[in-house]
């Protein structure tokens, strides 16, 4: 196993510097590598780097990619937990690399990093997101109204009605929830928590008039009833959405037909 070392001088020049008053520490990133152009087998590879523990896991991945091994491949864009690009399994838990600080994940031990589970790995930490987005599209994630005349001004909505679905509007479609779900791992046909969260966002929006249709879609054999309430999704959500609660509310709406 290769263990290249990054020296401090390079690290200090990094575009996202840490803080002058905190000491650098040495950490090991143990990364699950896979590149079918090179080998059909996935392998673990260790990298050692000197890093400020207040930096993000994403900063560590960048240090590796930029200074040690340019072939390391992952998605990222915003670097502050807003775009949903970099969900990955860090020490066995789904997290965003850009929202996870090194100091918070026991850096004295090797930090394991692998692709999220249940979607096909295409290269290193990059997975095929298509099935995930397909499930999202299947719940009709857009406002549906039946009024024949478009109102000229905005539709009115009380602050309480707006608050009712606030939690599920925060979703950034990172897939951390869906790919932490044991039901999804066993059966990729299951809609998964993220799609249900996005259905919830419209079912409970007072302006929307297609709640019944969405509920029917989720009443399907691959719908909400598959959920076994393991709470993995809620733990994984980087936006702090109460995913399990949203799923429970959709289940209840299916029984009572009230929402």
């Amino acid at each position: 196993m290769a263990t290249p070392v990054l020296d401090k001088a390079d690290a200090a020049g990094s575009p996202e510097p840490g803080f002058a008053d905190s000491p650098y520490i040495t950490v090991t990133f143990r990364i699950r590598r896979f590149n079918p152009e090179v080998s059909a087998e996935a392998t673990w590879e260790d990298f050692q780097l000197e890093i400020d523990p207040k930096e993000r896991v994403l900063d560590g991945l960048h240090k590796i990619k930029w200074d040690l091994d340019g072939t390391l491949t992952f998605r990222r864009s915003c670097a502050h937990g807003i775009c949903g690009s970099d969900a990955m399994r860090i020490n066995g838990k789904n997290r965003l690399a850009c929202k996870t600080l090194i100091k918070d994940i026991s850096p004295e031990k090797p930090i394991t990093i692998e692709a999220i589970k249940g979607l096909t790995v295409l290269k290193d930490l990059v997975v095929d997101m298509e099935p995930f987005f397909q499930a999202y599209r299947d719940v009709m994630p857009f406002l549906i109204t039946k009024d024949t005349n478009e109102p000229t001004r905005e539709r009115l909505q009380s602050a309480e009605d707006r608050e009712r679905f606030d939690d599920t509007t925060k979703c950034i479609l990172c897939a951390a929830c869906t790919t932490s779900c044991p039901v999804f791992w066993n059966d990729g046909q299951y809609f998964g928590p993220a799609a249900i969260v996005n259905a919830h966002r419209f079912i409970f929006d007072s302006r929307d008039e297609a709640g019944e249709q969405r509920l029917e879609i989720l009443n399907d054999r691959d719908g909400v009833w598959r959920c076994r309430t393991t709470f993995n999704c809620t733990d994984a959500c980087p936006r702090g959405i109460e995913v399990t609660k949203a799923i429970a509310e959709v289940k209840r709406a299916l029984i009572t037909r009230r929402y």
Partner: protein
Amino acid sequence: MKIHKYDTVIVGAGGAGMRAAIEATKRSRTAVLTKLYPTRSHTGAAQGGMAAALANVEEDNWEWHTFDTVKGGDYLVDQDAAEILAKEAIDSVLDLEKMGLPFNRTPNGTIDQRRFGGHSRNHGEAPVRRSCYAADRTGHMILQTLYQNCVKEGVEFFNEFYVLDQLITEVGGVKRSAGVVAYELATGEIHIFQAKAVIYASGGTGKFFKVTSNAHTLTGDGQAAVYRRGLPLEDMEFFQFHPTGIWRMGILLTEGARGEGGILRNKDGERFMEKYAPVMKDLASRDVVSRSIYTEIREGRGCGPEGDHVFLDLTHLPPEQLDAKLPDITEFARTYLGIEPYTDPIPIQPTAHYAMGGIPTNVQGEVLADNTTVVPGLYAAGEVACVSVHGANRLGTNSLLDINVFGKRAGIAAAEYSQTADFVELPENPESLVVEQIERLRSSTGNERVAELRRELQETMDANVMVFRTEQTIKTAVEKIAELRERYKNVAIQDKGKRFNTDLLEAVELGNLLDLAEVMAVSALARKESRGGHYREDYPNRDDVNFMRHTMAYREVGADGTETVRLDYKPVVQTRYQPMERKY
């Protein structure tokens, strides 16, 4: 290589690209090419709000909004365009609400509005509540809502396709757009998209700075693609430095924080903005606040052991207000700084934020080949474009507005054009430039590293062409950029594969940043005045006699192959408002 044929091709799926796509898809066969999945676009990072004189909470009208936009832009704004922006703002907010955007609401159920820098009642009398918002997640809600509506309309996306070249064919002496060349990340395959109309909506170019609010992927690919094909870039010296980035990281803390009552303080706890902007105080326009912060720092009143930042103080605001109105940015402070904003002030510094300049267009989004001639079939909208509604300094909340108003306009104009126009013949070997570029990078055995050159570029930009500039510092930047461009020829990458080769694409993106950094620095050197975001310590005043004009930068290639930036100028469109001194 694959060849595709569409009526309309849109490059980019941020706010501008998707707003355009919703219109274009209804009217023409449309493809959207985007290097990121649409919902990863940086529009999602926008926090504070979108301006429109809805007058839901107090008296307001579009004429006041136009005036503020013109004044905020230090009179370099094209006033006809600003008027369109302010007038169409109202419908564009209402459009979004009807598409489902969950705006915050007033007690009577209408869209709520809040204060934002530079927006005033009656031509500067007092701050006005004009920003429509959804907590501090307005951009996220816009991006999600537009994506939802693209799903509804069945918009065809090509995700993780990088557009790397613009195809232009001369027909009867007129340059016309023939299509674009794209690189597919998953496979490394080259695709030619022949299209009657192309719309660039590929966003900003902030990554040539080190401390920036911009995403890693904002590398000015669209600007670079058209510039390399001989088309001009307008006003590239004007870049906005937002006053409140998280210290050293650059992550943005919205101006909405000051709109809610947040106060900037120096190391003595003094509310220093009172000195610099007696009326608008902390809500003066961004360039004014950023310069004030650096003045405090330079004069020894900065905070921390190195005196290199100031504080954004929210501690006097009730925690419930912070939770309701600023949940995300308070969480950023907790996550990245370990600071509790209820009780502790947040260390901040100005952060490179927004490109006022870009691809010149008219108000229909048509791209200009010079001061007056349009390039038939070529359009641009959003941060990549320069209409110019932002002039020398953009007002907060006017960009989310810009992407909606001009994204929609460009989408309609391009689709209507492609309904009647014919396909333009592709140039011979349309893929050649991209193939050459990629093969050179893949086979290079040079000893330069992408990350190292990018670091040096970012450091020189931060040090020399940021909030304060002088002839000396800009010249230093110009020389450094020239050196880096030379060294870039020897850049080598480690990943030689075809599959998801982000190593290769980072090298391509660096090439774009270097080209655009050069244009910015050369344009800044020639502008011997101070205006908006461009502040020259050696020429501290605005000079309307010599510089009330837009910069137009062209790439020139000499007989010996040397590249230079040639500058020309374009008049500013003035209608109602005569330039006045800008006071806040």
